């Protein structure tokens, strides 16, 4: 029997999204949360006295790591060494070998897959080889080949555990590049006792016999990565693998849907939201309010900043959660332009025919700005622009 922790996508020192206006102390905690999650990982490994820990790629968030990320990892490794826990680490598309600026001066308990070719390390219990761990690291930014054929297990009588940073896909598919693509059936047929995957941030058990597992990342980083994050504690025996999810994240992100149709006045809404958000009691929860069905008369609340004020008040009152931002959509999209007059008909046609990219290139192609601007959410921008024009033309400024 062997016990190990499987985790991936630590993204140490990763920046966070959508936290523009949060208070400094919370921001500091957020910045440190990936490190805290790593601490939690170490604690859990020690607590459960695991045999080893698998880190399957994207340990660091960026191509050039920060010293803090490097030191945090080093410290974690040293602690595990003090408890005789091995670490098998590989690097992925975010922290590929060529990108690393720091020496991998890790202690002796750490085994690094430092080639893009699949290799393996034996894990010994006493003199006996109890498991063999296979894996590879990205040498450059992308690995687009299917690597499964390289996973050839030895005929040692022990557990064979494969680590792989990639996702399901076809290597022939040209339109959307998939990293280290594989087919689920290939993994199932390869004869390994456990497939420790990485790269996909959403926790997912693709198969149970043998377990083919994405543990997800260990710390959510935006409202796109909601809920508890962590790792799997895996026990392999002759008969049955057992998987236990261990939450590690220092703080969680949540989206909270709010239906605004029943809103009457600000105090009532404040009360209602306070009650709703106070159900988050554990740790720190960073919340995005998604307010829908805002009736026409309540739109002024948003335009005149009452809702922002309310959110500020709520943030003072809330204990274990914090509203980082809110989105809202009105009940009725906008006035029906076809009844508005011929000009509006022309406006509608103009919107329908426009090329957003071209319209915004003054900024997007700007010498200084273009390096920083990536996303162009055309759909949202057009929608908002329509709403804006509609409001302005119909004197909805409040």
């Amino acid at each position, binding site marked *: 029997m062997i016990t190990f922790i499987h985790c991936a996508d630590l993204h140490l*020192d990763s*920046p*966070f*999204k*959508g*936290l*523009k206006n949060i208070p400094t102390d919370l921001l500091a905690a957020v*910045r440190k949360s990936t490190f805290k999650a790593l601490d939690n990982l170490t604690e859990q490994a020690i607590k459960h006295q695991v045999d080893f820990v698998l880190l399957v790629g994207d340990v660091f968030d*960026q191509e*050039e790591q*920060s*010293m*803090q*990320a490097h*030191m945090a990892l080093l410290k974690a490794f040293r602690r595990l060494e003090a408890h005789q826990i091995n670490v098998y680490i590989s690097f992925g598309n975010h922290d590929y070998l060529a990108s690393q*600026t*720091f*020496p991998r*001066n890790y202690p002796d308990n750490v085994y690094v897959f430092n080639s893009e070719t699949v290799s393996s390390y034996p894990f010994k219990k006493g003199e006996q080889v109890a498991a063999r761990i296979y894996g590879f690291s990205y040498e450059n930014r992308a690995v687009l080949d299917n690597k499964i054929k390289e996973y050839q297990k030895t005929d040692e009588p022990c557990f064979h555990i494969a680590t792989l940073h990639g996702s399901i896909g076809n290597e022939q598919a040209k339109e959307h590049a998939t990293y280290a693509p594989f087919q689920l059936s290939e993994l199932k047929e390869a004869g390994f006792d456990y497939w420790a995957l990485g790269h996909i941030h959403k926790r997912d058990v693709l198969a149970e016999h043998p377990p083919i597992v994405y543990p997800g990342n260990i710390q959510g980083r935006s409202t796109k990565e909601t809920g508890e994050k962590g790792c799997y504690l895996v026990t392999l025996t002759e008969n049955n693998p057992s998987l236990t999810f261990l939450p590690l994240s220092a703080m969680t992100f949540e989206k909270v849907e709010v239906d605004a149709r029943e809103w009457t006045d600000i105090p009532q809404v404040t009360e209602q939201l306070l009650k709703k958000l106070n159900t988050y009691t554990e740790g720190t929860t960073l919340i995005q309010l998604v307010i829908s069905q805002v009736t026409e008369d309540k739109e002024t609340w948003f335009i005149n900043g009452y809702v922002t004020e309310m959110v500020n008040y709520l943030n003072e009152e809330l204990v274990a959660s914090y509203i980082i931002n809110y989105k809202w959509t009105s009940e009725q999209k906008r006035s*029906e332009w076809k*009844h*508005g*007059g*011929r*000009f*509006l008909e*022309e*406006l509608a*046609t*103009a*919107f329908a025919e*426009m090329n*957003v990219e071209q*319209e*915004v290139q*003054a*900024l*997007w192609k*700007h010498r*200084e*700005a273009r390096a*920083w*601007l*990536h*996303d*162009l*959410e055309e759909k*949202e*921008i*057009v929608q*908002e*622009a*329509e709403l*804006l*024009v509609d409001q*302005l*033309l*119909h*004197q909805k400024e409040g």
Partner: protein
Amino acid sequence: MRIDSIHIYGFGKWTDQQFTFDHDGLIEIAGNNESGKTTLRKFISYILFGMKPKELERFIPKQGSTVGGRMKLSGIVSSQLTIERVAGKHKNQALVWTEDGREMDEDWLRTELKGIKETDFQAIYTFDAHDLRQIQEMDNQSLHEVLLAVGMTGTDRIYHTEKHVEKKLAEWFKPNGKKPAINQLLQELKDLQEKLTEAKKLESSYQQQLVEIEQIENQLVALEQEKHQLENKQQQIEKQRTHYQTITDYYHTNARWNRLDHDISFPAQGIKRWNEWKEALLPLKSEERVLANSKQEIEEQINRLELMTDEQLATLAKGVELFQQIEALKSERKDMHKRMVEIEEEVRSKLATMQINLTVEGLQNMELPFYLEEAWADLTNQLEKLAVEKQYIENEQASIKKRKQELREEKEHLLTSQIGQTELKEYQKELEQVNKVEQQEKYQKWHSTYRKQLKNSNILLVIGLVVAVGLFFLTDVWSVVVAIVTIGQNITVRLYGKVFKQWLQPDKATVSTLSEAEIQELERLIQYQTELQNALAEIDKDIQKYQQEQVKQQERHTFLTERIDQLEQKITEQEQAYPFLSMIEVPYWSRLYQQIIVQKQKLSEVQQLKKTINQVDVQLKDQQIKLDGLNLDVENLEQAYQHELDKRNDNKRLQARKDEIQAQLTTIIEKQKPYQEEINQLLQQAEVDTEDAFIAKGEKKEELDLLQEKRQQLTDSLVVLFSEKELQPFVDGAFADKETLERRLQELAKEIQYVTNRIKQAQATLSDRKASVKVLENNEDVSILKHQLAMKQEELQESANKWAVYQVASANLAKAKTTYSQKYLPQVMEQASDYFAKLTLGNYQYIYMEDEKMMVKDSDEFTFDVLELSQGTKDQLYIAIRFALSHVMASRLALPFLIDDGFVHFDSNRKAIVLEIIEELSKEHQLFYFTANPTNNAIIKL
């Protein structure tokens, strides 16, 4: 859509006014100024779109009737609609009914009007003289504006919207600006990026420093080794120098040792052991001597004690016992005799104090049986009881006698008040007479009443008979009835009088005449006499009873006297038996018995004592004879016995001591034996016979041992410091002298100092490097800056998105404006050209746009700028455009046109043309033409 009829409840000057418009085409409404044309226009607008309260105030009728009204419309839905709007009703909102009675609200109406607002309506469907005045300012821009205004809901919203969007865009971003928000963000990002690059550069030195640290650490290890070797050498020489004396000694000792004979047979530690045995023996010997002396002394002491034989001692003990017994008996006898005399004396004195003439001897001889005390007490009790009883009877007798006397006296007294029996009967007769007189009076009273009744009855009889006779001639039945009733009642009265007279009339015999007071007196007298006779009979009965009681008491008295005599007899008998009683009253006898009996008991105790004394005397005699038989010196008997016992104890103790000393003596002698044996053995081992020879040989051996020991000591102390190999040269005397050693030490110290300095330098460098690495390791700058950069980038992205929203809005507004103009302006121009040609009677043919400017072309194909035209032509141009706009725009929703006559200064030809145009418009739209100058077609004249 057309308006079929209007009913004004009250609006401005109009109250309860109805208009019907069933005329196709132009509806001309004529009236002078102030006749209410404008008010009617406003009313139509009010019904369709409502009005702001402030504006509505102007239209409250002076008479104060309800503001509002209704309007019938067709052409909106399939059937006719009625719209009613009344101020203050239904929240000022319109109510709409269809013909089949369905009811709709304002919202519905608004939808049906395609969202057109009052302003739109004004812009498209109404115009008046005021509009014409605007022609002065008309240029291309204003034409555009007008065009847009009528094309879009709301008039200047587009302009304001554009302005707002442009302003915002400028606030967000200028491609070459510094202040706008996005430009600032870009600058901040640039700064952060620079800082990050700087911080990263610093971190990149990390690996280089780690390599350096490793190099320095290797260098340090080498230096430390070198230093260690030098220090070892230094230590070596330092040792030689420090222990130079020892080394020299070592050399000398070894040399001497080699010269000595190493074979002498002598026991190990011989002399020491010899002395030890000797020393150990000495105290044992002296102790043995002391013990022998002690033993001898004790034996002498024992001989000095002269002891009696055991038989002699037994006799002596017997004598002592007897002597002690005799003494005890003597003392006992003395005590008893004393007690006897005391009791006898006590009894004598007690008897004397009682003064009853009784001696001790008398008492001794007297019998006092146990029942005597009770018998005496009984006598006393009986005597007392009889005396009391006798006294009681005597008292009773005296009281009865007195009572009898009292009763006799009372009887005498009553007898004097009694009267004779005949006299009493007389009185009773008198009283019976009085009762009869009262009955007579009662009868008289009733009789007079009856007579009156009879008289009335008789009168009634006469009347009745007269009536009966009278009635007889009229009806026979009623006369008979009356006659019978009257006669009947008269007979009844008479019968009643007769019967009662017999009952009530008393005898008219003698009647005495006594007064009321006399009667009462008589009754009282008779009563009194009856009571008196009863009292006398009672007294006689009591006297009889007391007589009997007196006899009974007499008998009891006699019986008591006899009992007392018998008791006196018994007392006398006792006095004769115990003469001393005669001196004492009977009641005290029982108490005296107690005292005498106590004394008698004491006397019997004396008797007992006497007997015991005699027994003791016999015992004394026996014991004395036994003592005399032993033939001992009675004087010091006890003393002699004690002395002998003491001597015997001494003897015992001394014997025990002697035994103890003997045992010690034996032990001491035994202890000496092993030492003696050891000594003998030493002599044998040394192969000598005498003590002197032993000691001489021992001293020689000792010298050899000392030398060996010193040699060993030196070796030991040097072995610690030097190796075996290093020691050998010392034995042979091959070692450097002190000066050489000193010199080499100085050389080494210099070398060590040099290496130490180099180590210190390396360590300093190492710790510097390590500290700097530590600082790097703890440096969060890159992390923090990266996060800040990411955050800033996100902020930029958000701002950029917002900018993009405005940018897109702005672009689309511009584009819509252009396409709108492009699409509709030609239509308008074409229509306007047509109207303009008509209005100018063909002088001008075309209106067109050129470089955003409006141009006109005359019939000779000459082109003119609008500004070049005369005022009149400008007016016509405006009207042409205005109508053209309305024509084009109204094609979507055919609301009625409301046109106010603004063509006053047109000449008749042109005016006719205007009307023609209006007429043409009215083919497609209902058209109200309000004018002060009616044509023949005027439908309504106000």
